[in-house]
Structure formats: structure tokens, C-alpha cells
């Protein structure tokens, strides 16, 4: 039963069989032709991601309707100490995150007196982890990778927040934020179920409409890796024998801006070529957490020192996670 669910719902093997049938039997294309193989990869991965993404974003939209940032703020203001970091990271994981909202969320959290460390636990976790990435990772690389990614991501966000707390950098927040008087809008209007469904649908339209080019590019790169770049080359650069592979993955990942949805096809193609899990996790975290647009947004609310600290903690953390995974699983 569990295998059936994994194979048919997460991995969608029926869809792969459909394209096998279409390409090799109906169109009678050659099994050994690499262009056909790339085409199969491209068609299968693209359609699989779009199906999974639509369903997942819809579910996320419903969940999110129960946890608007205003409510998150209220929950977080009630917990103290490390509990705040833990809950902050977990709520960051639930809230699907768009760099659009990072500034208002940051200002809202800090100006209402939430500790900086808690806000940062939220900020670390939010772009990196969500339920959609859990399921997608499970689909492409198996449950083990997916669960490890989430757990390590949460622990990293909690520790990152605690470090920032102990650095006492409260003076490193842009000055204008401290003068803000927030009208504490208590918005407890109960949403109707139809509103939640509507929110989910609008979320799907918005996200699919926004990220589809990244997905096509991601799957395209994945298809090239899958059929045209020799495994021996990839392994020599990113494999376990190259101690610098994790650092390389992070350096390549940071300037890239993509959604989890766009990164996963690339990561899964690399995974199939034998790139170790730690290197892949580091790559995915670097792309999603430390992206340039995100940093440009944060620059508006953080002074240089705190922004630099955020980047340094992020980079070192990701590199350590990558090495750790490679060491344990390698």
C-alpha cells in the first residue's frame, strides 16, 4: 500500500509509462537515441511538476489561510526563549513565502517587539522549507532525503536565530523601523470554507503563473544533465571525492534565483548521476534561502552588519549541513 502510494501518487510512474508508450510504441522512436531520452525526461518532469505543484500549492493555500502572518505574530509573542525560535522556525515552514512579503513581515514582527532571534528563525525557515518542498523531494528523491531536508532545515533555522539573538544586534535594524507605531489590527474574522478554497485557487493561479518559466528552465537543465553530461564528469566535480563540491554547490546556488519547484528537477538529475545528497541539499538551500532578490529586499530593513551576519551564518550553515550529510551518508 505504502509503495503503491509512493510510486503512483508521489513518483507518478504511470505518467512515465504513458510517455514510454507514446514515444517508443506509438511514435516508434529509438530507445537509444539521447534526444528522445531527453524529450522523455522533459515531458515527464514538466507535467509531473505542474500536477504536483498545483495540488500542493492549493493545499498550502488552505493551510496558510489558518496561519496569516498576523496570527503568527500573535502566537510568537506568547512564547519565550528558545521556544520562540522553535515555533518561529516551524511557522516559517508552514507559511509559504514570497519575497514580496518579507519586508512587511519583518517590520511587523520587529516593531511589535518580537525578539530579533525569533524573527530570524522565521526568516531562515520560511523560503527554505514548506510542505510542497517535502512532497516534491519525496517524489523526486525519496522519503529519506525529503525528511532529512526538512529536519535539518528546521534545526538550522533554530540555531541561526539563536546565534543572531546572542550577537545582540538590535541596533542593526534600519532606524525608521523603530519609530513605527503599529496599529494592532485584530483580525479574527472567521473565514468561510469557500473563502479558503478561493484563497487556495488564487494561490495556485498566482504561483503557477509566476514560476512556470523557472520550471521549464530547471527541467531543461535537468534534461541536459540527464542525457548529455557524462556521469564521470559530474562526479569528478560534484562527487564525494571532491571535498570542495559542497562549497562549489553553494557558490553556484546563491546567485541563482529559483523556486523550490525549479531547483528540484536539476537536483534530481544530479542525484541520478551520483551526486551525494549533502551536496544537493546544500545546493537547494543556497538557491532558496540565500537568493539575490531576497537579500535586496532585506537590505531595506537591515543595516550592513546584520545583513552580512545573515549571509555569513546562512553560507556557513549550509556548507556544514552539506558536509555533514556527505560524511554520514557517504
Amino acid at each position, binding site marked *: 500500500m505504502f509503495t503503491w502510494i509512493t510510486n503512483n501518487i508521489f513518483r507518478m510512474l504511470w505518467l512515465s509509462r504513458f510517455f514510454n508508450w507514446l514515444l517508443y510504441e506509438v511514435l516508434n522512436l529509438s530507445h537509444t537515441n539521447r534526444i528522445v531520452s531527453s524529450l522523455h525526461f522533459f515531458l515527464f518532469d514538466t507535467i509531473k511538476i505542474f500536477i504536483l505543484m498545483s495540488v500542493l500549492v492549493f493545499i498550502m493555500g488552505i493551510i496558510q489561510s489558518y496561519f*496569516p502572518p498576523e496570527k503568527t505574530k500573535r502566537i510568537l509573542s506568547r512564547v519565550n526563549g528558545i521556544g520562540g525560535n522553535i515555533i518561529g522556525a516551524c511557522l516559517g515552514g508552514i507559511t509559504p513565502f514570497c519575497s514580496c512579503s518579507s519586508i512587511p513581515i519583518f*517590520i*511587523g514582527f520587529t516593531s511589535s517587539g518580537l525578539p530579533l532571534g525569533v524573527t530570524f528563525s522565521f526568516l531562515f525557515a520560511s523560503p527554505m522549507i514548506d510542505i510542497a518542498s517535502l512532497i516534491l523531494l519525496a517524489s523526486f528523491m525519496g522519503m529519506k532525503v525529503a525528511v532529512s531536508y526538512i529536519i535539518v532545515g528546521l534545526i538550522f533555522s533554530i540555531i541561526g536565530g539563536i546565534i543572531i539573538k546572542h550577537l545582540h544586534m538590535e541596533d542593526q535594524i534600519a532606524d525608521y523601523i523603530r519609530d513605527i507605531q503599529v496599529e494592532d489590527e485584530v483580525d479574527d474574522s472567521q473565514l468561510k470554507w469557500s473563502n479558503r478554497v478561493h484563497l487556495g485557487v488564487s494561490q495556485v493561479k*498566482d504561483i503557477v503563473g509566476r514560476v512556470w518559466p523557472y520550471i521549464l528552465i530547471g527541467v531543461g537543465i535537468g534534461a541536459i544533465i540527464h542525457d548529455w553530461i557524462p556521469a564521470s564528469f559530474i562526479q569528478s566535480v560534484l562527487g564525494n571525492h571532491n571535498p570542495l563540491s559542497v562549497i562549489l554547490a553553494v557558490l553556484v546556488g546563491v546567485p541563482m534565483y529559483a523556486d523550490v519547484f525549479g531547483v528540484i528537477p536539476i537536483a534530481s538529475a544530479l542525484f541520478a548521476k551520483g551526486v551525494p545528497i549533502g551536496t544537493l541539499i546544500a545546493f537547494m538551500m543556497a538557491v532558496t534561502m540565500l537568493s539575490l532578490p531576497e537579500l535586496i529586499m532585506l537590505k531595506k530593513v537591515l543595516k550592513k552588519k546584520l545583513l552580512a551576519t545573515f549571509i555569513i551564518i546562512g553560507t556557513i550553515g549550509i556548507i556544514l549541513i552539506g558536509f555533514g550529510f556527505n560524511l554520514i551518508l557517504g
Partner: protein
Amino acid sequence: MNVNDIDILVLGTGCPKCKKLAENTKQAIKDANLENKQFKYVTDPVLMAQLGIMSSPALLVNGKVMAKGELLSPEEIVKIFKKNNLL
């Protein structure tokens, strides 16, 4: 700027979703023949935070937050106008 003085206000951070909501709102104003109403699209994260809004973008009618974090279609925006007796 007092937000209560503006009939129809889209508040955002300048993200693509915000621009789209501003466009849809303009379309809705046209569809509902509300060109006589005052419309503004403001990108000011500080103002958003002051109003307690944490999901971008937001649509305000007569200073009241009608939607946030949501990309509404022109039809949905016209419905909101109706609810607020703008029509």
C-alpha cells in the same frame, strides 16, 4: 498621507503580484465606471506595517483593508466595490 482620504488604494512593496493587483484594480474601476473616484497605487512597506498589514499586496477601500496577500481579478474587485457602496 492619510489612507482614509483615498477612495481606492492598492498598497504593495513593488513586487510583480502588487503591480498586477494595481492593474486589475484599474481595470475594475474602468469596468464599474468609477473613474470619478480617487485611486492610488502606493509602494510603501513602512506604511503597510503601520497599518498592520503583513501580506503584500493589499487593497483598501475608504481606508478599510478589504484584501491582503491575494491577487484579485477585476471581477472580484468590482464585487468589493459593490459591497462598499461605491457603485
